[in-house]
């Protein structure tokens, strides 16, 4: 039986943006090591908010349980870390165990592709090996390593973003709409390569997407937002649907 990587109970986060907002409620969420999870739902229902909480960069409002147990590493009670404002420990967990791919890649514009990919390894003071070249070759960006991100196409940037997220061999990969900015053909190619890669590395993948073409093979968790007209001041509730 696989180990549980994430264990959440009654996690709630409310966000207000310009007098409108939503309340994200997670009654229960358990993710096992090695699973491929797709969180789907309408735009604005809280997918990115959930990913941010799983990435330990957004503090939930209330929680009964929020634990992270990366493979071959100690468990952490995230709720207590947030209460203690233990930013250093949260940063350490992110650094060691989590890779994150943003919708537009999120590469640092002043570093070359190689330097962007190396950055998580440098943070962990990992020795130089051929992992950068092998990951970049698999993802098809080995010829772009010495370029600045501004000179890459959208597809190449996204491949580089995946390479950076995977270069330090995290046990968890989070991806927020990773193919939203890509054309369908490029998106399919990238996701195919990534799925093969993470299968070989035994990484737990959690992706937020409303692109059914890419997530149909994954286990779905559906975030349902309550229906109704948009009203000023109304907080819409989003909950996982079984």
């Amino acid at each position: 039986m696989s180990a549980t990587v994430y264990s959440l109970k009654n996690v709630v986060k409310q966000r207000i943006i310009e007098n409108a907002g939503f309340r994200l409620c997670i009654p229960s969420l358990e993710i096992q090591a090695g699973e491929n999870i797709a969180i789907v739902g309408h735009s604005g229902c809280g997918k990115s908010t959930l990913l941010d909480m799983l990435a330990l960069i957004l503090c939930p409002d209330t929680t009964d349980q929020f634990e992270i147990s990366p493979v071959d590493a100690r468990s952490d009670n995230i709720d207590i870390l947030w209460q203690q404002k233990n930013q250093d420990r949260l940063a350490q967990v992110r650094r060691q165990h989590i890779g994150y791919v943003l919708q537009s890649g999120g590469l640092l514009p002043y570093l070359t592709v190689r330097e962007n990919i190396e950055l998580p390894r440098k943070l962990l003071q990992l020795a130089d090996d051929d992992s950068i070249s092998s990951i970049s070759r698999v993802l098809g960006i080995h010829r772009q390593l010495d370029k600045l991100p501004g000179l890459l196409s959208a597809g190449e940037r996204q491949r580089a973003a995946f390479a950076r997220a995977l270069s330090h061999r995290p046990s968890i990969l989070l991806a927020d709409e990773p193919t939203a900015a890509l054309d369908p053909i490029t998106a399919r190619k990238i996701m195919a390569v990534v799925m093969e890669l993470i299968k070989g590395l035994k990484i737990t993948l959690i992706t937020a997407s409303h692109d059914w073409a890419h997530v149909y093979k994954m286990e779905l968790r559906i975030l349902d937002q309550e229906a109704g007209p948009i009203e000023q001041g109304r907080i819409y509730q989003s909950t996982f649907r079984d």
Partner: protein
Amino acid sequence: MSQVGNILRLSFRDYTHEWRMSGCFVLALAAVLAPMMILFGLKFGIVSSMIYELVENPVNREIRPIGSGRYDPQWIDRYGDRDDVEFIIPKTRTLAASIQLKSDQSKRILSTELMATAEHDPLLANLASTPQNLFEIILSRGAARKLNLSRGDQVDASLARQFKGKRERVHLNLEVINIADALLTSRSVAFVHLDLLLATEYFKDGRSVPELGWSGDAVDGKSRSYPSFRLYARSIYDVENLVKSLEGQGVRVKANAAEIATVQSIERNLSIIFWIVACVGATGFAFSLGASLWGNVDRKKRDLSILRLLGFSSRRIVLFPVMQSLYTATLGWLLAVLVYLSFEQIINRFLAPRLKLDQTLCYLISDHFFWAFGLTIVTAIFAAIIGGIRAAEIEPSDGLRDI
């Protein structure tokens, strides 16, 4: 590489990547700092030149008694032992303090004022030595020019008197051991050992001077007193106290106290004006830089959020804007120094001669540059704290959602 090392590297890479924006910050700092340096350079240069002239010219430290008095050798020695007195030497009666000089290189006979001198005489500070005996003499440049004499030449010195109804003249062969600085006096002056000055007074008074073979009445054994003296304060700032001390003893004196007080007042007022301008400028710059850094952190919210996402702690992220502020401070200071040096050259080489000023109008010493650097860094760090606080407060989740 540690987190700190990575942050230093990343902050520098970002700073150079956005060289246009960084350049604007550097120019803004130099635009504030360079004028302040020029202002301070002018203040320091003008005042220093005025003080230098006062200080360097020993005449400004001289305190001269008005009229004649009776100053015994013990009184002279007592004043010579004071910390605020650099030099004091007795003077004889004015009428007796003259001698006639003649040289083989000139046809003229020059009547020359005699002044006693000794070691540490400020008027002869640039010269290696002073007359050590009765047969050595230092001439003023005017006297040397008129007699066509140089160092090492011999000069015939003669004195005349009316003694017991007969006119007598004595001669003395003196060696010119040096020529005094032209700026000291335009008069024909001869500096001699005190014993020679006293000998000329004795001779003219009809006394004998056995050391020189001059006959006359014997000098009585009573200790003598002197009608006047030549006194120099140790610095221009000691003149006022010395004048008060002498006048407290009933000695009326004359000194350049008023001129010294004027220069000191100018220095004080210019300093006040400068520091007001400097404080206002520094405050304005600090807030301006702080506001720019705050805005810069907002602009870089996305990149800083990505760094937090990758695993940099919020404490380390604070270093990002702090380091960039230090880069701006260092480069801005360097540029300000270059601008200042250019203006210093323009002012001193082109402006001062046109104003017929033969002094340095604008300059700074190396200490001033280091002080300016230090103050710039301190101001930049203070401003950077504002940006750093803003950076630490960034919610990475909010920063990422701006993409």
